[in-house]
């Protein structure tokens, strides 16, 4: 089953680091709790599914459903290691330019037709077709051609070494040529039945039905090449309100969902809940930050940025905003991932040092209101964030209070998402932002930090320009030798921590809760869904008979 999350930088939930389980009761080797087929898993999502061809969608709900229906050539295992899926093995040529896959034999599409290397070629053709509006075309941008050497061997030839090559074949859902060829040629993939009414994949679950805005029903694939999943049905309910999802969880109308920090700490500790549910916790793959507009001369000065970082008590912030359910961020790499440099220390909470740095930068005297002044101008700026995110609002308030103590005035502005993006982020018309970045399975962050990525539609919206960082990013993404990449990213981590182009705040933990009748859940850096087809409900605990 594909557990790889979309390559685009959206908040995903793979992680590294410590993970613990709150309640026991999942040892499958004891008597009556042996693996059994049956039952239904009911999941909930806040957002609607916007399409069933993952190549065309970038929202997480569509990709979660897609993960059940499709496979990639490879996927991620529990500790974020790359493991085989549709491909049994692979090898790179010495110059990193050719990647060969040997495919698993005997795989069938949900409609019974055999899966072959030609479908892999087709997937590449469809994603790179100029008429296909795919957000993932860049994953395949460096590919010269894809060839089916025989029905079970695929050769991918790259124009230049691409470090994410292997991973990109994990996040790509392989599509069936025999159903989509004509649609692809006409550039009408979106209108194919595959996208809405009848998606056909090779994955562990087959599509049964979808009622838009209500639910998606999937049934287990008896011919799944890795073995039919134990749980016979998955119902993916769409419930647009977090509060309702929580109540449904308590009423046993939903079996699996993610809890907020408050729910995890304070609202799920009563006996009735603990008797029926297991709570899990693992480090998330998204971090929250305070980003500066580096075109502003005040923030262009590194001393000012470091001073602001010193003025914020990040531990208190973590405890206050997410009740301690996270870890402090020292840089843009997930704690515990191979790219993270464990020797980099975070910026300490030190208001005196902050004051000293600010004085260094010319902010020495204070006016009557207690604000620092320089050349007659008091130091005040606008801190923006998006509406609808309670945590970011709290962070803004804490930052405002912390900075007031060192004499910097902050005005908070909360703006609706699309407007924030169009009028402020893209036009670079902001002073500072409280936002978050999600990191994918690969640590490459070229699009966020490289100086070439600061066009209005690009993601380097703080306008960061550092030639050393540029060099490290380029090295990291074009090498297929792991040791070189580790060196580059460790140095990058050091440089960014020193430079503080933004204040790295914290990585949030993901807090799933699942009905404890489900056995086999094994939380790890990749989360809990990585082995979903292996979950089961023992016969005597099954709740839903599936006809």
């Amino acid at each position, binding site marked *: 089953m594909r557990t790889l999350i979309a390559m*685009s*930088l*959206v*908040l995903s939930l793979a992680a590294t680091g410590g993970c613990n389980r709150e309640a026991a009761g999942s040892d499958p080797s004891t008597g009556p709790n042996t693996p059994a087929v049956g039952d*239904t898993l*009911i999941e909930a999502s806040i957002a609607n599914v*916007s*399409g069933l061809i993952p190549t065309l969608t*970038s*929202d*997480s709900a569509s990709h979660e459903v897609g993960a059940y229906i499709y496979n990639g050539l490879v996927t991620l295992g529990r500790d974020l290691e790359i493991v085989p899926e549709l491909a049994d093995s692979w090898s790179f040529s010495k110059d990193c330019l050719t990647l060969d896959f040997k495919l698993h034999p005997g795989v069938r599409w949900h409609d019974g037709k055999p899966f072959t290397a030609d479908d892999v070629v087709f997937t590449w053709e469809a994603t790179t077709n*100029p008429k296909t*509006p*795919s*957000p*993932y*075309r*860049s994953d395949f941008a460096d590919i010269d051609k894809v060839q089916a050497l025989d029905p079970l061997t695929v050769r991918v030839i790259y124009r230049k070494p691409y470090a994410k090559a292997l991973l990109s074949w994990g996040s790509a859902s392989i599509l069936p040529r025999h159903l989509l060829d004509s649609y692809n040629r006409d550039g009408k993939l*979106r*209108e194919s039945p595959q*996208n*809405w009414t009848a998606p056909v994949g090779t994955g562990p679950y087959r599509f049964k039905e979808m*009622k*838009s*805005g*209500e*639910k998606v029903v999937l049934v287990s694939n008896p011919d799944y090449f890795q073995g039919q999943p134990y749980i016979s049905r998955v*119902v993916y*309910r*769409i*419930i*647009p*309100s977090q*509060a*309702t999802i929580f*109540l*449904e969880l*308590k*009423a046993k*109308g939903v079996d699996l969902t993610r809890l907020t920090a408050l729910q995890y700490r304070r609202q799920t500790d009563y006996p009735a809940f603990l008797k029926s549910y297991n709570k899990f916790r693992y480090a998330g793959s998204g971090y929250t930050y305070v980003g500066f507009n580096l075109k502003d001369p005040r923030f262009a000065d590194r001393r000012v940025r470091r001073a602001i970082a010193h003025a914020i008590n990040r531990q208190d912030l973590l405890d206050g905003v997410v009740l301690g359910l996270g870890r402090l961020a020292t840089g843009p790499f997930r704690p515990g991932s191979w790219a993270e440099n464990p020797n980099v220390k975070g910026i300490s909470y030190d208001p005196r040092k902050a004051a000293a740095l600010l004085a260094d930068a010319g902010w020495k005297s204070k006016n009557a209101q207690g604000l620092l002044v320089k050349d007659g101008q008091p130091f005040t700026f606008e801190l923006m964030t998006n509406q*609808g*995110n309670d945590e970011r609002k709290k962070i803004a308030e804490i930052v405002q209070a912390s900075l007031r103590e060192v004499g910097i005035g902050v005005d908070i502005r909360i703006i609706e*998402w*699309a*407007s924030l*993006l*169009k*009028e402020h982020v893209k036009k670079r018309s902001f002073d500072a932002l409280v*936002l978050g*970045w999600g990191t994918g399975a690969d640590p490459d962050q070229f*699009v966020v930090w490289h100086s070439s*990525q600061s*066009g209005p*539609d*690009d*993601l380097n919206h703080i306008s960061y320009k550092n030639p050393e960082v540029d060099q490290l990013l380029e090295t990291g993404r074009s090498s297929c030798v792991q040791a070189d990449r580790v060196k580059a990213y460790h140095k990058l981590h050091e440089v960014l921590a020193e430079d503080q182009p933004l204040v790295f705040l914290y990585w949030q933990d993901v807090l799933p809760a699942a009905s404890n009748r489900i056995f086999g859940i094994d939380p790890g850096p990749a989360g809990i869904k990585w082995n979903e087809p292996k979950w089961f409900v023992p016969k005597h605990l099954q709740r*839903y*008979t*599936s*006809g």
Partner: protein
Amino acid sequence: MLAYALRRLVLAIPLILGITLISFMVIHLAPGEPGQTPGEMVTAEAKRAYEQLKVEYHLDRPLPEQYWIWLKRLARLDLGRSFAPHGRPVLSMIGERLPITLLLNIVEILIIVALAVPIGVLSATRQYSAFDKFTTIFVFVGFATPEFWLALLLMILFGIQLGWLPISGLRSPTAEYFTFWRQQLDFLSHLVMPIMVATFGGLAGYSRYMRQSMLEVVRQDYIQSARAKGLAERVVIGKHALRNALLPIITILALSLPTLIGSSVIVESIFAIPGMGQLMVQAAYERDYPVLMGNLVFVATLTLIANLMADIAYSLVDPRIRVGRRRR
């Protein structure tokens, strides 16, 4: 009468055009643009994917031209396709969602009227009695209570603690395995709480209007004559007074017909009901212009039809009003 109705219908067409034109401008005035998933940062790649669609959807043309293209399509009764990745026809999307919203809202209005009229009448005829005071407090509490808060409380009470009713959605997740009659019962049980929440708030308005209107009518001279004639009080109130007191209610009913397809956003979101309200809010966040415009056409048309129906109903109910006839 018929001529009047026809004339009104013909005049409605330029009205609808005007409404759509203004709406079109307002929608495009809002900052932000399509191609964004709300709350998630979109990569430049996704943006480039959207750029392709931009040409297909004529978003690169000047606004008046875009409006004209939309209008020409509308003349063929084609509402266009959504900007979302699935690109489905707007008409299908609305067609999927409209029935449940209509069902919910029609049932809600029927219940409100069925409750509000007797409450209003009884409050008026027993003015200042214990019943009057109690119902006054009751309906105002309902009016002041935020819907989502009430919804959550009811969910906790009936869904979790008592376990009588399902919490959200339209059907149980495994409903396809139920027998036909159990399926209908399942569906009805899912509607109970949403309707309860929706009606509780709406009762206040209608019952107060009814009460006020009744109080005015009951003081009229003809009521006194009816009593003097020896008619039973039941007939006096139930037949003569009620008919006259109902006139304002008809007006309000007619004016609230357009809300039949849009007003239940909060109830739909909290109870996870896939209706028009949810569709519209989602479309607004995503700047899904075709869906927004399609919905506006529906609402505008409905409003105009509702107004026409209100006027005709008025003339039927109130003999003093005769629409369309020339006065000699």
